[in-house]
């Protein structure tokens, strides 16, 4: 229990850091200190600078803002899609359910990363940084619904066959009323759980995409693009501060996983 509270406190502090990024690091993520490229940690630069002389601490803060705000947004999109597709399939059943489940099977059979880079390649690669953020996380949300839809469909089907649905029908409730008043409120726990489960998955996927150069475009930082610095350490890690984004990713994902377990139990 204590460790879960610690995880939630850590996530809260991180979110606060993102909100106050402009105040904590006023120099911004793109400002270059040309006389100090690849500098070690100092008072002026808490985590040193990268090879272009940009303050690493500021970039980590702004990168956290991008990754931590947009992964939940993508998770929300995926959950809404899963709720709509899976919920409709489970509620209406019959052929619609068969077709939706076949589509879900097809999407799940495709290795996600292959599908993601295929669709990413369809879209322009040389776009404005803000657009690349939108594209990256919209893609994650649009392609990450399948697993959750399967769970929601099974839940909706079970609810439609449950005593409460039978009773509502016996009392003359229409299909819309049954869906709105009885099925949807009971699907909420499953949807919450899927939402919380998706966040760490999307954080890690963005990190992988960013490291391969297919994520958020420079100079806007994200955890993925910050981790690309590790690629240049082929001869060894010169400054330990290079590892700061990695430590943050690991801590954040593990905090989410600890929080998710609690949410799952509640669900």
């Amino acid at each position, binding site marked *: 229990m204590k460790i879960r509270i610690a995880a939630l406190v850590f996530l809260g502090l991180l979110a606060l850091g993102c909100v106050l990024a402009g105040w904590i690091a006023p120099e911004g993520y793109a400002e270059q200190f040309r006389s100090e490229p690849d500098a070690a940690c100092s008072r002026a630069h808490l985590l040193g600078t990268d090879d272009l002389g940009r303050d690493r601490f500021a970039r980590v803060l702004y990168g956290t803002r991008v990754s931590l705000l947009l992964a939940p947004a993508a998770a929300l999109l995926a959950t809404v899609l899963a709720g709509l597709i899976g919920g409709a399939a489970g509620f209406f059943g019959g052929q619609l359910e068969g077709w939706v489940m076949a589509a879900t099977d*097809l999407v799940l059979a495709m290795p996600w990363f292959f599908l993601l*880079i295929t669709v990413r*390649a369809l879209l322009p690669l040389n776009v404005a940084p803000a657009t690349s953020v939108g594209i990256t996380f919209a893609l994650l949300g649009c392609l990450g619904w399948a697993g959750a839809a399967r769970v929601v469909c099974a839940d909706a089907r079970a609810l439609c066959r449950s005593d409460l649905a039978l009773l509502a029908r016996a009392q003359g409730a229409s299909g819309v009323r049954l869906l709105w008043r009885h099925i949807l409120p009971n699907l909420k726990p499953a949807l919450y759980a899927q939402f919380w489960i998706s966040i760490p998955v999307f954080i890690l996927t963005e*990190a992988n995409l960013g490291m*391969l*150069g297919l994520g958020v475009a420079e100079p806007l930082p994200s955890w993925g693009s910050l981790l690309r610095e590790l690629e240049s350490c082929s001869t060894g890690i010169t400054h330990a501060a290079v590892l700061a984004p990695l430590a943050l990713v690991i801590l954040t*994902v*593990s905090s989410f996983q600890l929080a998710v377990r609690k949410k799952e139990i509640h669900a």
Partner: protein
Amino acid sequence: MRRLGQHGLRIGLVLVAGGLLSAMLVRTAPGYGVDEQDLDSRLNAESHRALHEAKGMDGGFLRFCVAWCGRVLHGDLGTSAALNEPVRQLLEERIPETAKTLGEGLGLAWTLGLGLALLSSAPGLRGVEWAAWFVASALLCVPAAVLAIGFVLAGAPGRLAVGLIVFPKVFEFTRNLLARSAVMPHVLAARARGVGEGRVLFRHVLPVTARQIFALAGVSVCMAMAACIPVEVLCDLPGIGQLAWKAALGRDLPLLVMLTMLVTLATLAANTAAETLSGNLRGGEAR
């Protein structure tokens, strides 16, 4: 036999649907129909038209789809625009490398995952269970690309990174499965009758969980294939994953959709094999 037929039909339907979808993606992709030869001022309009016709760039969408699927069925997978080589040749060169990566990675993942899950289920080995759980949980929080870089920095064979990416999922699933099976009534009854732990595991627990473990084996192929992209790119292994990444950066959509279809087929084949095996087990249990 009937089940095999059903699986074959399913794979066939996926092929048709995937083929049409791929053709649609290629046809509607930005830049389709633009050829660098269009910029050659020495060629007149008729030559340009003839070139377009030869490449099947003119005509309606349906005609394009039929022509594209026909070419694929005849083994002509097209030419990669980014690498300027026939797709078929690229695949022939790179499939063995990825197969090797998958083999070694999955071997490591299953040896570690299943082995540690079995050890964790043994009474009196709580330390092993906690250590394995900690390592698996930590690995779940590390991006696959970072693990690959770690292997490069350590000078370790990059292929094994795939194993460490898949291992936590195998371990967590099989550990939970074994823990759930261990409290089933027939297992408790066997223990109450004084049956040894080894016999309980191999005669009462594993037969019950085998079907789900086979299903996980199919899914783990899909996970390993997805992990191949960052691992092969960062560890410089010339396989399918690296090819997909190059195709994505070069916006070589024909190559990319072909790779995605190929990988989907491989995944479906793995899942079908796993389902057939688990179906045989169920049949055996029923008899």
